[in-house]
């Protein structure tokens, strides 16, 4: 366990440490500063790559492919007087996103080479941002998760506000306000869940019992001291509830006890605690995803941010929304998720269609790419939301599992293609200093290598078979067929819109006889540095398109288990509850009829 603490802490806090170190490097040694930052992101990437080599079992710190359980998990005392622990761990949902983060940061740091203003401050903020992003995916204590979630805000504010485009200050504060509003909702939900949680009830009323079933109890990873308190409480020595911020424990409470949805004590308007908590959490995550109608910060932030930061925003930060819904909203609040499945799906489809139409209407190259993110992330929301587990009157969660796998894959695929697209925009913007889609043309002739790479990356975004974007979209669209045919048809049709805006853009920017805009003489072929960032991105897009199993093998066990647990919950808890409700309603109906 100690080695897991060291490893994961190293991964998360190495960037922060280097940032601290950078503070003591003289301001004018910009190359040293950049090289140190690049080396740091590279080291973090290499460590995560090493972890990705399939490991052999429990004591191996490398990722174990066969299991859906938490790996490398540890819970260390942090603020025990408020039940807060330094609890981190990995599973098939967080690990691919962790690698994506470290890879995106490496690419983005490489893309930062032409930043010339306040380089030292830029690198320090960049590395602090990386710590926050990595931490979000590893944290399993709700408080810790929230801290990392918020730690990203301030560096991001400055990175957009200082190094961004002409409307940077507006975009930065808009981003900050939106995200903070979302996180305040999240904080309220966290506190509601915390206060209503009780490990003693969990131990008493479910199979997760420290005395009778120690193995299952160990899955929750509560600290030893807390386990002792729970045992004492079970023996009747205390009657105070034992609250927790442990996300795994909260998940078990949401699925196996009535702590969050006791029908006798609704919170407000007849809805249970978890119903409200789900709504607040979902809103908080939806702002990050972003879903229509709370997406309006995204076009501004993405357009005004410098290229590397746009890459991170699109590549990693949007994924946190999807990750939060998948990791927190659904498992902890299953009843609300079940009842609101149509709402989640509707938001997903709305984002897809709206984002695609908006992208079609854009004149600004970067804004078009930004709206394409809104559209593509809609697939994620949709894929998670499909609660399609009935098939001809029996439980069969395979389609839902497919949808969730598709959503996960879509997150990763978008995490590869979208930074690539932003980088491609950045490359041409660096040369001609404008992004007006109508004033390009003929780049194919002037920059052949760049154009070839751009074709590949944009087609990956489009979802062309054989490239990574295809797999996720197809999985999601297929899975929804059995939930709602209307939604399935709309989501399938969105692919046509996507093709329309991408192809139209390619026609206007890369094809055509000659370049029409200003600064034509500045157009020069791609540099080696630019090539070395774009080429790996395209290579990964092709690799995951041809051999998607490379990603699926990491995530499928955990995703499948998550779905399985929720399906079991529906079968064992929700269905009987609904049946009873129906009987009660029918009985009262009969009674009134007979009168």
């Amino acid at each position, binding site marked *: 366990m100690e080695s897991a603490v060291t490893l994961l802490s190293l991964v998360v806090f190495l960037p922060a440490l280097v940032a601290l170190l950078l503070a003591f490097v003289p301001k004018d040694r910009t190359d040293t500063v950049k090289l140190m930052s690049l080396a740091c992101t590279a080291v973090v990437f290499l460590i995560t790559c090493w972890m990705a080599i399939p490991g052999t079992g429990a004591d191996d710190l490398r990722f174990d492919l066969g299991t859906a359980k938490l790996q490398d998990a540890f819970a260390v005392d942090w603020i025990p007087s408020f039940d807060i622990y330094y609890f981190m761990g990995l599973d098939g949902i967080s690990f691919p996103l962790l690698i994506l983060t470290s890879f995106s940061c490496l690419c983005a740091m490489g893309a930062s080479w032409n930043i010339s203003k306040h380089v030292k401050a830029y690198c320090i903020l960049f590395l602090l941002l990386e710590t926050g992003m990595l931490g979000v995916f590893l944290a399993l204590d709700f408080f810790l998760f929230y801290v990392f979630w918020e730690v990203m805000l301030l560096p991001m504010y*400055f990175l957009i506000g200082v190094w961004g485009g002409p409307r940077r200050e507006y975009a930065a504060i808009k981003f900050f306000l939106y995200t903070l509003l979302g996180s305040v909702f999240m904080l309220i939900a966290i506190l509601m869940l915390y*206060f209503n949680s009780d490990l003693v009830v969990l131990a008493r009323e479910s199979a997760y019992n420290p005395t009778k079933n120690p193995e299952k109890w160990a899955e929750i990873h509560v600290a030893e001291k807390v386990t002792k308190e729970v045992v004492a409480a079970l023996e009747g020595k205390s009657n105070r509830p034992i609250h927790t911020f442990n996300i795994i424990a909260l998940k078990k409470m949401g699925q196996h006890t009535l702590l969050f949805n006791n029908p006798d004590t609704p919170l407000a308007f007849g809805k249970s605690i978890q119903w409200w908590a789900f709504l607040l959490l979902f809103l908080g995550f939806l702002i990050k995803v972003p879903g229509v109608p709370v997406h309006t910060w995204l076009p501004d932030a993405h357009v005004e941010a410098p290229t590397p930061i746009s890459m991170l925003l699109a590549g990693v930060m949007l994924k946190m929304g999807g990750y939060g819904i998948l990791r927190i909203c659904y498992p902890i609040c299953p009843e609300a998720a079940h009842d609101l499945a149509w709402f989640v799906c509707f938001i997903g489809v709305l984002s897809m269609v709206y984002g695609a139409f908006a992208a079609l209407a854009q004149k600004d190259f970067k804004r078009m790419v930004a709206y394409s993110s809104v559209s593509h992330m809609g697939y994620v929301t949709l894929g998670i939301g499909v609660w399609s587990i009935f098939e001809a009157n029996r439980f069969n969660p395979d389609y839902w599992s497919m949808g969730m796998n598709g959503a996960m894959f879509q997150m990763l695929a978008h995490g590869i293609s979208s930074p690539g697209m932003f980088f491609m925009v950045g490359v041409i913007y660096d040369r001609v200093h404008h992004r007006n889609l109508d004033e390009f043309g003929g780049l194919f002739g002037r920059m052949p290598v760049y154009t070839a790479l751009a074709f590949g990356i944009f087609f990956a975004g489009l979802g062309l078979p054989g490239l990574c974007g295809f797999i996720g979209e197809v999985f999601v669209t297929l899975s929804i067929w059995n939930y709602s045919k209307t939604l399935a048809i709309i989501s399938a049709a969105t692919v046509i819109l996507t093709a329309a805006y991408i192809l139209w853009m390619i026609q206007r920017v890369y094809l055509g006889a000659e370049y029409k805009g200003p600064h034509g003489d500045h157009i020069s072929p791609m540099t080696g540095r630019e090539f070395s960032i774009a080429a790996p991105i395209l290579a990964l897009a092709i690799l995951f398109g041809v051999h998607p199993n490379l990603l699926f093998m990491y995530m499928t066990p955990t995703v499948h288990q998550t779905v399985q647990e929720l399906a079991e919950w529906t079968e064992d808890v929700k269905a009987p509850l609904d049946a009873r409700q129906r009987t009660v309603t029918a009985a009262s109906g009969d009674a009134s009829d007979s009168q």
Partner: protein
Amino acid sequence: MFELIERLQHNTLQVSLPGFQPELAICATIVLLLLGRMLPFTRWIDTLWIALGGTLVALYLARPWQHLAVGTDVAATPLFDGMLQLDTFTIYFRGVLLLFVALFLIFSRLSGIPDREDAVDIYALVLGSTLGMMLMASANHLFVVFMGIEMASVPSYALAGVLKGRRISSEAALKYAIFGAGTAGVMLYGISLLAGALGTLHLPTMVNQLADMPEAEFAMRQTVLLSGGLMLMVGLAFKLSAVPFHFWCPDVFEGAPAEVDAFLSVASKAAALALLVRVAIGFGHVPTSSVAAVDRPTSAVVRTVAFAAQPAVDAPVAAKAADDKAETPATVPVPLAKSRRFMVGLISLLAAVTATFGNLAAYSQTNLKRLLAYSTIAHAGYMMMPVAAALAVVGRDPELARESISAICFYIGTYLFMNLGAFAVVAFVRNETRSEEIRDYAGMIRRSPGLVVCFGIILVSLLGLPPMSGFAAKLLVFKSLVTDPQLYTLLIIGGLNTVLSLVYYLRVVKVMTIDAEPQDRVLPSFSMLTPGGVFITLMTIPVAGLGIWWDPLNVLAQQAVRQLFS
């Protein structure tokens, strides 16, 4: 008769005076400082050392580290026949106040406000005010409440006008004094009404009277009690600078030097909060027999002396005081339940309005001290919220109520460093640039990066973002609000207020970092290696450190409240 005198003598000499040592030490220091005016020895020693030494001796005598340690069991003792209450809560606030005063004395010397001529006056006024605040924190009797507020306020009026000859400063002092006098008058009238309706001013006896009052009689006296309570609240709201009694605050903060602002915003607010807690507990919770038993012999004497005609009411008190924890809605006497509901509503309303108004009004400020004044108003709103929460749950679960109050103790512990740090930055920058306008901070990061980073951390902490200590404080406050569904509105208002406050705190950070340096003049560069810089750094370290690891302060805060609601 002799027995009575003997008992009084024993109580005073053996119990009360030993528990009153820190206050006595402060008294002695004040006398010494004033004597120094007449005797020549102050020409040889710096009076700062006398004031600082006196404060540290008082802090040593208060021994917060000993009494607040986990596991020690010091009994809560009433001092001076129940006028004061000496418990861990008193000790915590004494510790916070004295620590703050020690830091404040160092800070004011570094920033150079007390010159050779004025120093003695300023130190005497500060210590005098602190004495009043310490009384406020331990008040157990409405007479002490009034006396404490006045002892704390009157020196503050003079402190606000410490910059002699500046119109704006004198105006601030006058405004403060008039406002203070007005609210004190209203409060005193309210206290007299309460005394009339309940026959005593001793808080535990008052609540017993209230609980034992037959319903018919209560209905008769309801109006008097209600207006008395409201008027008492006026005085408290003035000290807390709660809306609508906040009007003095921005003007005084703008007119007075930043050093005095630091003192008013931290010490005065801490004492007022402690007092609010005392009064709220005093009218919302009937103490159990253990406390009442210690209390009774002498408090009965006080009562018979003060209200000779009033018949003793001890018997029913002892009988019903035992069933504290098992209190159910059915067993709560109607007057007590009504008193609680009234206070929960009133304090929630005040807190919500204060936080919202403070944050909204801060938007349009151009002067940094005014902005910070509105920020302190907003923070007063946040800090009042747990009091409402504690009263809402006390009948159901005293343990939860204690936890709520501990949020206030934690908050004030972090707020001390945040506000002292913020005003220290204002004071040191003023010494360099002669300006307190926000626009004159433009582009400061180019020449004084260390200062801007520290100030940025402090502002982010005031805003309440992790990983700064302000977030932990806010988290604890919000946690106290999820305990009861009737507080959810307040919780949502509090949460939205955090979003509201983002814009103006961040504006200051933005001006310092993103905005360009002024063209027409060169900004001075402020080195962090000067004494002022070191002081600011020392304030910033706990602001950030207590955000990352706040377990010790949280444990301390939990210890501070362990004797409340018992």
